[in-house]
């Protein structure tokens, strides 16, 4: 240990640590010994709360031991060392436990912040798209009626000039709306060739900390690498939304969520990357399944579900020229299968891009 370095720990902590060790060393009955252990655990937690790093705990220990030896020069050091083993371990255990909890809380806070952010972006995009739709209708009416009105006015009249201005203003408003939509899209990164395997892995790691401890989230990808042309945030959002839904579906029981990434070569199309998210939760009825992609459709309690998760997934999959299939049975579980065009590592597509599909292929009732 480096003796020239003075510990940054608050002096009162050092004093308490010394007192504690003293209490343990001179405990005269089992109760006093127990109390000393409890104090040690308490101290361990306080060390974490004060953000004192592990190596400084060692220094603290050294410092306290020196004080103890000074106060009791008659006591052999070996005996002191023996007696303080138990409280030391107690403090250490409490320290690691509290430290882990703190880590988990932090990870959870990060995940929540990210979720919050992606929800906000999702909301902005949805809002922009919704406004755009209504605005374009309104602008269409303004523009059209002003053209019709133009027919009623003499060609060289002042009124014609005014109508021109109305039309110009309408087109400016149209550009503004288009710009707003572009902005909503710009918050995403550029599409690049990405390997879905580590990306999904990374996303699940973040998710895992926010899931209830009794939910199993397994990822044993069949593919070693799976390259697709996408924006990393798009894949993250797809995985997040599907897994959050799966977690909600298994909520009550100790459920299991299985995620997989594999490569497939369908007969009717080019090589694809297949992402599946399967849960053994409550499943869906036919009626629910038919509507899951509708924006704002949710079966969840107000405040819990926004009803946007799957409509966003659907939009993203369509944008990536993929397809999505749901297999679900009430009481048995649900499996979302998403196929995305495979790309080469360098980003050259395997061939021409696919035709666009808006409607998902026929949905099935049962598991294969």
């Amino acid at each position: 240990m480096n003796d020239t370095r003075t510990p940054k720990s608050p002096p009162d902590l050092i004093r308490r640590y010394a007192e504690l060790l003293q209490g343990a060393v001179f405990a005269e009955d089992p109760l006093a010994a127990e109390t000393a252990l409890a104090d040690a655990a308490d101290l361990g937690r306080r060390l974490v709360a004060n953000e004192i790093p592990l190596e400084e705990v060692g220094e603290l220990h050294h410092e306290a031991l020196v004080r103890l030896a000074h106060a009791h020069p008659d006591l052999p050091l070996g005996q002191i060392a023996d007696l303080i083993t138990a409280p030391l371990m107690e403090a250490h255990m409490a320290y690691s436990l509290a430290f882990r909890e703190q880590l988990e809380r932090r990870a959870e806070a990060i995940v929540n912040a990210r979720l919050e952010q992606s929800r906000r972006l999702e909301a902005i995009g949805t809002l922009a798209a919704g406004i755009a739709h209504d605005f374009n209708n309104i602008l269409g009416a303004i523009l059209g009626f002003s053209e019709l009105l133009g027919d009623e006015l003499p060609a060289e009249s002042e009124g014609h000039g005014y109508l021109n201005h109305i039309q110009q203003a309408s087109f400016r408003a149209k550009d503004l709306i288009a710009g707003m939509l572009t902005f909503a899209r710009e918050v995403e990164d550029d599409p690049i060739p990405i390997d879905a395997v580590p990306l999904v892995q990374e996303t699940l790691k973040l998710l895992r900390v926010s899931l209830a401890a009794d939910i199993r989230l397994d990822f044993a990808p069949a593919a070693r690498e799976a390259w697709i042309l996408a924006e990393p945030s798009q894949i993250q959002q797809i995985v997040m939304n599907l897994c959050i839904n799966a977690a909600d579906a298994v909520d009550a029981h100790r459920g299991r969520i299985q995620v997989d990434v594999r490569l497939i070569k369908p007969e009717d199309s080019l090589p694809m990357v297949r992402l599946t998210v399967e849960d053994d939760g409550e499943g869906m009825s036919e009626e629910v399944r038919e509507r899951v992609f509708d924006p704002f459709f949710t079966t969840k309690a107000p405040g819990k579900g926004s009803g946007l998760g799957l409509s966003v997934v659907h939009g993203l999959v369509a944008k990536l020229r993929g397809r999505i299939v749901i297999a679900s049975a009430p009481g048995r579980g649900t499996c979302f299968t998403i196929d995305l065009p495979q790309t080469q590592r360098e980003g050259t597509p395997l061939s021409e891009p696919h035709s666009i599909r808006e409607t998902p292929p026929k949905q099935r009732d049962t598991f294969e």
Partner: protein
Amino acid sequence: MIKVLIVDDDEIFRAMLLAMMRREGYEVSAVDNGREALQRVEQDPPDLVITDILMPEIDGIELIMELAKLDARIPIIAVSGGRRTISLEFNLESAKLLGVRATLPKPFTRESLRKAIAEALDQDQKDTP
């Protein structure tokens, strides 16, 4: 006279398109949803359908698919002002894949409407009445 059916759930836009098409000299009727449009087509088949994409109940995409099943291949112009979570371009692109003759993003000028109609109607019917 060429009979045109307009399908759009937006009241003010529908009124505008109705007025504009009348002014262009067509025999025009308008409905505000896909279900009614299908009924109207059955009773009195038009020569041209101009349909919006985003509508409640039966939306434009479904309507286009239903119309494609009919023997009388009625020319269709799809118009769209965009849609929640899916872009306007995507809607019109989907409509094209389903075989509509022309597409128009909202808002549009009378000039582009005329062009779309010319594209949609067969060559020999191209001259406006």
